[in-house]
């Protein structure tokens, strides 16, 4: 996982900033060994659990119980096959993918349109509607859980993907709108005015001019939303109850863990976890710069 080397951000520091004749410091060597030790320790603490998970997914159950630190004698990929078919991890993975694709598309579309109106159009009551909308960020999802269950049931969407997609979207909108409104406000008005003078309509202006200009903001908030939808556990747990085949990946993994407790099939659980982690790891390594920027921008609202 350390193969992708991107430019060190600190490399941007002007190298000529320090006077060349500064005397060398004696604390530096000791402090460096000390601090590097801690950095390495934490890196090991992060990698070790994941490496262990991967290794254990390739061991037999006997090997896992006998020696947690031991290496597998043979690479048992049949654990993965078992998790994929018997525990339906493959199907749950596909379910999550479909739902998140839907919810992310809907969130971005509705979030961008609402934010654009809030940022660019004056109308009576705009402030009130905006704060009502964005105020949703302040409330813990917990508070809504019980009534939400009955709202979704009463519109006939309990246990369905469209229900989940709408709920994911609804709870992501406040932050998305907040973030994108701020972003649309920073875009120059002159481009929009020029387009209008050239006879561009309001709708065309949005889809052809403003939306492409807002791309960086859309990407940041999109990554943020993707991860929060993909990792959602509480909402599907309540809104797709039971143990049907249309559950999300997180639910599938947690019931795999429960059944592992009875059946003692450790290897299958580790294989299931590994299957769930690997795609995330690949995407993360490929887009780490955007993901880190997107998530940290998301928190600094």
């Amino acid at each position, binding site marked *: 996982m350390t193969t992708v080397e991107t430019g060190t951000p600190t490399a941007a520091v002007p190298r000529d900033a320090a006077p060349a004749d500064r005397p060398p410091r004696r604390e530096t060597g000791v402090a460096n060994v000390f601090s590097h030790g801690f950095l390495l320790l934490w890196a090991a603490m992060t990698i070790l659990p994941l490496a262990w998970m991967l290794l254990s997914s390739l061991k037999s159950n006997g090997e896992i119980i006998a020696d947690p630190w031991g290496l597998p004698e043979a690479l048992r990929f049949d654990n993965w096959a078992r998790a994929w078919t018997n525990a339906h991890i493959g199907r749950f993975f596909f379910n999550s993918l479909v739902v998140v694709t839907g919810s992310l598309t809907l969130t971005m579309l509705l979030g961008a349109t609402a934010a654009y109106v809030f940022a660019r159009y004056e109308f009576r009551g705009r402030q009130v509607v905006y704060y009502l909308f964005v105020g949703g960020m302040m409330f813990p999802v917990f508070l809504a859980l*019980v009534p939400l269950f*009955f709202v979704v049931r009463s519109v006939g969407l309990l246990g369905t993907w469209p229900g989940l997609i709408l709920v994911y979207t*609804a709870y992501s909108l406040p932050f998305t709108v907040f973030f994108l409104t701020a972003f649309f406000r920073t875009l120059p008005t002159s481009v929009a005015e020029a387009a209008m003078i050239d006879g561009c309509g309001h709708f065309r202006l949005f889809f052809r001019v403003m939306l492409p200009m807002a791309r960086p903001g859309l990407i940041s908030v999109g990554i943020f939303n993707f991860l929060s939808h993909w990792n959602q556990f509480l909402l599907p747990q309540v809104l797709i109850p039971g143990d049907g085949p249309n559950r999300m990946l997180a639910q599938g993994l947690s019931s795999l863990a429960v059944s592992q407790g009875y059946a003692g099939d450790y290897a299958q659980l580790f294989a299931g976890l590994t299957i769930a982690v690997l795609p995330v790891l690949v995407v993360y390594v490929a887009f780490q710069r955007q993901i880190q920027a997107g998530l940290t921008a998301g928190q600094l609202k």
Partner: protein
Amino acid sequence: MRHGRLPLILCFLLPPLAIYGIFVLSPYLQAFQISTTDWLGYSAQADQVGLANFRTLLHDGYVWNALKNNAILLVVVPVVTIALGLFFASMLTMGGRKGRAGVTGVRGTAVYRLVYFFPQVLSVVIIALLWKEIYSPTSGLLNGALRAVGLASPPAWLGDPRFAFWCVLAVMVWSNVGFYVVLFGAAMQAIPRDIYEAVLLDGASRATMLRKITIPLLWDTIQVAWIYLAIAALDGFILVQLMTNGGPNFSSDVIGLRMYDTSFGSENKFGYASAIGVAMFFLTLSVAVLALRTARRDRIEYS
């Protein structure tokens, strides 16, 4: 120019507002109403009981026990996570060899960031299940290591009421530190280098530099981090539910799990569960306000 303005506003605003109203606003409002009833779930029968649920809440030993754990999380998780985050971030941005290159990070900064941040993109469910296995008394990574260094009977961790809660807390810190390393690192990059170089020339040590320069300049970011971690600590539900389910003997219970159990778990007391939810809401709100108030300082702008 005004032609087409109103259709756009309506088209763009009404669908999101409708979804938001139905699935967010109305449940929140209903929650407050349900919290004053004795609704027992799937029957329509519900009587107004006024504030009776809240009175029960005040004398509910399980709720207080859970709240105590949340209070510990609220203090320990932000302090430890922010301290570690600041320490690692300052190492990565300016812990490097001084002398010829001014203030730089250690070697391999990008790799460290890549590794540290990774738990942040993992689902909490995966983290919880993985660590549950790591803590497993017989087949776990931790006890495997302890036995290897000669400890004959290492503790059962999640099965031991003395340790279970702290084990969950450690996982919470583990999964969060990387994010704050990156967050603080980004904020530190924004601090002008010449400030550090001036201080270094004046002979300040690394610790003084962190305490007198970095932390005051990063105060806004630290404050935000504190609020987020505090809110995360008030939740903590998924980790606890999947790792210990509040046990053994409620030793690792948290308020979120109390509420979930009361409504969708062992009982269906929706009225009472909503009362717990309302109490949680005010708690979260006061924590956020308190954090903002006590942490307020003058903002420093670089010019």
